[in-house]
């Protein structure tokens, strides 16, 4: 990758130019520092103390909280559930998003309306989206069981949010519905930037659409696509609203993700120190995952 190491003009300009790259990141980094450092330091300190609902014991408790993490089965189960959700929802959203972007890439009448409509799911507040799906899946007030009944010819009373065999499908449906448009719009924007003369030339030469996609399109949007995957993956890891609205982590703790567990522990039960330790565990694991992913991204490219 090339760098831009050119300067010209007055001494002031030369200073601004030479330090351009630092000046330009300064405001953003400063804001991030202000909001990032204090909570992180606080959380770190707290994780070494023993604060919960009943006590504000701020004496140093060493690795008490961290040791507890390792024997907490519920924590590791919730991490497992979270990984399951990421592993299944992310590819679905990527592939569906890619296909939708390809569909709308070229001109067509009314495209503006279609695209605007298709982005609507992401604009519904997640709590409301979750509640809406709960309503849709509801046996009394929802149309889904009704439609299933029409298709199969006999009344269906599937308890989507209660029975263990249906809760995950329900969650995936609601989640993919809400966030596929995210991948769709981002990829559409990236693909729109690709030089059309290349793809047109290849088409005239008779290349199949598949070849055009993999040889021309994909490399051109690679950066954006991998970053979108990374962002979406991190967000999926923190999934909360949709699951809370549908099952609250139930039945039992079968659909409890790390965010739900952290919410119950930290918000409802004020296990401040323990949640802080959990947070660092999560940050630690995610950092490793992200670094690993980044290395692979650069390598493949």
């Amino acid at each position, binding site marked *: 990758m090339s760098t831009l190491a050119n300067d010209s003009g007055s001494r002031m300009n030369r200073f601004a130019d030479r330090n351009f790259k630092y000046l330009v990141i300064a405001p953003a980094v400063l804001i991030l520092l202000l909001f990032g450092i204090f909570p992180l330091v606080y959380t770190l300190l707290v994780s070494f103390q023993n604060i919960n*609902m*009943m006590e*504000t014991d701020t004496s140093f408790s060493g690795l008490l909280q961290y040791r507890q993490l390792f024997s907490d089965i519920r924590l590791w189960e919730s991490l497992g559930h979270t990984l399951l959700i990421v592993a299944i929802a992310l590819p679905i959203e990527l592939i569906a998003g890619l296909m939708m972007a390809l569909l709308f890439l070229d001109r067509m009448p009314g495209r503006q309306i279609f695209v605007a409509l298709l982005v609507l799911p992401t604009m519904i507040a997640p709590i409301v989206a979750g509640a809406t799906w*709960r309503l849709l899946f*509801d*046996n*009394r*007030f929802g149309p889904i*069981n009704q439609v299933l009944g029409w298709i199969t010819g006999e*009344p269906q*009373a599937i*308890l989507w*949010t*209660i*029975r*263990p065999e249906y809760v995950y499908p329900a969650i995936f449906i609601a989640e993919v519905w809400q966030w596929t448009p995210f991948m769709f719009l981002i990829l559409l924007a990236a693909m729109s930037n690709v030089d059309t003369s290349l793809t047109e030339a290849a088409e005239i030469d008779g290349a199949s659409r598949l070849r055009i996609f993999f040889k021309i399109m994909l490399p051109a949007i690679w950066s954006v696509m991998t970053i979108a995957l990374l962002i979406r993956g991190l967000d999926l890891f923190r999934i909360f609203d949709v699951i809370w609205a549908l*099952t*609250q*982590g*139930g*039945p*039992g*703790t*079968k659909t409890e993700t790390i965010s739900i567990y952290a919410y*119950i522990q930290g*918000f*409802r*039960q*004020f296990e401040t120190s323990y949640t802080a330790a959990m947070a660092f565990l999560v940050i630690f694991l995610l950092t490793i995952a992200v670094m690993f992913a980044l290395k692979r991204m650069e390598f493949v490219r």
Partner: protein
Amino acid sequence: MKTLISLVAGAALIATATAARAQSAADRAVEAAKKYAGSEISIVWEAGLQSLDPLNFSGPKWEELTGIKVKVIEVPTSEMFTKILQEHRAGTGAYDALNVIPSWMPDLVNAGALEELDAYVDKYGYRAELDSIAPTYRDNQMKVDGKIYGFPDDGDLFILYYRKDLFEDPANMAEFKAKHGYDLAAPVTWEQYADIGQFFTDKFAPKIYGAGQFRQPAYGIWMFEERFRNTGGKFFDADTMRATVNGDIGVAAFEGMRNDNKFMPPGVESWGFVEALSAFLAGDIAMTISWPPFGRWAAGYGTDDSALSWVPKTTIADKVGYALPPGGSPQLAAGFSLSVSSSSPDKEAAYLFIQWLNSEEISLQRVQLPYALRDPFRESHFTNPEYLSRWKDAPAYLKTLRAGADSGLLDLSILQIDKYEEVLRQATSRLWGGEDSQAILNDVATQWDALTDRIGVDKQRAAYTDWASKPNAYPN
């Protein structure tokens, strides 16, 4: 002459003194609060329908009387505990008066978030009117460790509502008697409840089902605590402080709950408050167990108010009978008490506001607001002529509420009760999920014991003994 003058003066003195003592607690609060005119106090209240009370009625009225502005801070119930404790921990002093659910009070007191109120109660002579609160609420939802921390302000309890017309129909009565050998009437045991529920479902489904209820796991706590105790269960062994919910009684309760679902409409496990309400008002279910507002709205009281426009129109007005749930000891589910935040900079003004709100005079008006979610909690509420005339069956309604207020059962309230309740909530969702009842309850007991150990067995035993010694902890 002198004697006459002194007699007259003496009489006048006595008259004024009596008049002063006869001055109501509400008036005293108003008088004392006038010196804070021009200031503003904040009160945390449940968001939505509940908040209409301070927003539309009590807040403006208080301001009119005392010149103190009331800022209502609406918080969804599920976040109230969190926000109160967070603001307290951060020492912001942003909240002056509070609404708290009584079962939270031990934890909040332990965390130092609530102000002790005894001194204020004596200063403003509120003891008398506190005593006239119905005993169940007065003796159980006011004090922690013998000190006053809140004024019970809401007579929440579970009532069994049933379709009188179906129960009194001669054909139904004859068939039922023939089938089961006893008269068709509001069930007094859970076996009868199942018999009756199944009977109506067999006869009328899918038009009408025998019963329906809010069965979501969040309500599981109350459903289980009520049924378990009514059938003789005890939560803990008071000596060892080990959980005893996984014995035969517990398993029978869980199994009973699951079996009852069979005669309820399909999907009832996911019903919340509004599903049950709409089903009952539409006439789809013959019995339901719920809080007092069901009764008022089923009778059509207040549902013309724009605030209640979301309530489906009742099709069963005048057809509703009221009874205590099977076992006769209803759960005093949730409820609200008024408290003062210990970090408030305006404690006295906040105290005077809640005294006024909770007083005989004002609370009577508040429980009769058409959009009110506050249920009768004072003796005078149950016998008030105006209330009794609100709808045809209001006397029966108030009579049942009064009976429930006598025999009602407190929500379990020990240290960190939220964690124990979380375990029960999950247990209920596992029950609906189809797992074995004994296995689930064994897990509940194990988790409860682990919690007790973590909190400290002695500390928890003290809290439990304090709770269990209350007259309404277990049925007598």
